[in-house]
């Protein structure tokens, strides 16, 4: 059973900023058929509601269907049951204004960094007149201006990921999904990237949904944290964090942070063990 929030946490942006999408998912279910014919329920029933412009993280054990959920919310996949809507309008397929940053390296090795970032813009039906400026701004914003003409193969993993984020940002998403984007990075880089992400969130005003297996990351970055159960994944609980909009990774030193992560793990531990025994 999921718990829907009744009150926005303090510090959340006032509704009506217009940029961030309100995302609602009801009764999402997804099943797979295995080679031997048995049906596996990977997800659901899942209900989720994201306020416009909020930063929402989801933590859950491995195999709980987080990535499936991301696929459905981004429109890359369709649910077997249930629906998703943006600002009240249901969608199937990738809607306008959605951006997704993947965990795997999605850089195009045959293009330079600049061409990578410009890629999405160039393929639009109508090329924006300020294409070059937007690309330059995104490169600067992500600290890649000096590497604009390099190839992705010459960059470190973290920089490649920043480039992929830049490529997504340049399209001005109103709903930004991130599927364990910093999974391949070391802890310190992760913390820095977390601060980057908050900066991006504040500047763009987009609704952000972050999937992560790091409880610390979820606790320090988000307005609310959702806990997913083991497979089939459902939303067990949603915790507001109460941080202000101007937060950064230093919230980790507050006692409230410890309480929050403690509670998250308490809730999550059983699910993780279930998932581990289940051999996922």
């Amino acid at each position, binding site marked *: 059973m999921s718990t829907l929030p009744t009150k926005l946490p303090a510090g959340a942006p006032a509704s009506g900023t217009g940029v961030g999408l309100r995302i609602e998912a009801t009764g999402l279910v997804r*099943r*797979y*058929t*295995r*080679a031997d014919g048995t049906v596996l329920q990977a997800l659901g029933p899942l209900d989720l509601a994201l306020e416009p412009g909020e930063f929402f993280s989801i933590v859950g054990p491995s195999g709980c269907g987080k990535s499936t959920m991301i696929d459905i919310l981004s429109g890359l996949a369709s649910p077997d049951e249930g629906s998703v809507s943006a600002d009240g309008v249901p969608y199937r397929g990738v809607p306008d204004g959605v951006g997704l940053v993947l965990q795997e390296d999605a850089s195009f090795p045959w293009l330079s960094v600049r061409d990578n970032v410009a890629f999405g813009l160039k393929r639009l039906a109508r090329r924006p007149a300020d294409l070059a400026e937007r690309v330059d701004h995104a490169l600067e914003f992500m600290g890649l201006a000096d590497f604009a003409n390099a190839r992705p193969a010459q960059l470190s993993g973290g920089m490649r990921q920043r480039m992929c984020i830049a490529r997504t940002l340049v399209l001005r998403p109103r709903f930004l999904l991130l599927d364990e984007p910093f999974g391949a990075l070391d802890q310190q880089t992760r913390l820095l990237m977390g601060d980057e992400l908050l900066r991006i969130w504040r500047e763009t005003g987009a609704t952000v949904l972050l999937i992560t297996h790091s409880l610390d990351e979820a606790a320090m970055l988000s307005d609310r944290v959702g806990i997913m159960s083991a497979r089939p994944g459902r939303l067990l609980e949603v915790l507001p964090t109460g941080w202000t909009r101007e937060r950064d990774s230093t919230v980790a030193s507050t006692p409230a942070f410890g309480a929050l992560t403690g509670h998250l793990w308490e809730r999550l531990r059983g699910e993780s063990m279930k998932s581990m025994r289940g051999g996922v």
Partner: protein
Amino acid sequence: MKLSSSTGRRLSLRPGGGVAAAVLVVVLWQVAALALGHDALAGPVPATQRLFAILSGARYRPELLATLGSFLLALAISWCGGLLLAAWFGTRRFAGEVAEPLLVSFYAIPKVTLYPIVLLICGLGMGSKVTFGVLHGIVPVILVGMAAIRNLKPVYARTARALSLSPRAALVHVLLPAIAPQLLTGMRVGLSLTLLGTLIGEMFGGERGVGHMLVRAINLADNDTIMALALLLMVFAIAANWSLGRVASRFSGS
């Protein structure tokens, strides 16, 4: 790779795929034989009958044994020589770097053109057949073996040391099994090419052997024998390859 949807593709791991393919090939063969007529192409039935006659009779036994003998000898040299050289080049980085482009270039040369040279040097007979087989088969064994050794993940050696294994134990129980699948791949290619080389050698050598039988059958327009021998070689080659593949799977755990 994740399964993609509830109605999505099922990953099939049934071994029946090989049988289905074999049936398909036989069917196509029969159709082609019917379309082209017996004067052009013998069908599966006459070919199989002729093959049984060849195998069961005593008349062709010396020829079959000659081929088998030359092939096995060439194979032994290709494999053993190849693996030893692979070990040598694989563990010595400089030597490996010097040798690899040479071997790769040699691999790409149409070795048939070297055949007259081999004949001139070795004369007619088994020597040239075996040499030719080795020339064909040894290079992939070396190249793949070298690559396998060079790409061996350091973690295996470290694990062996962490478990306090002696060098010999480490080699036998950890390192060799780790590179076995790749070595076997090279050996499979080596086997196919050695067979090819030995056969081509026989086709020119004028000596006894399956290749020679094939040339004689071509000259006599003996289609049944041609296809019978083709069938024999195909079955033999596929069976040998398949067995090596099974051994390789045992080591890679798939």
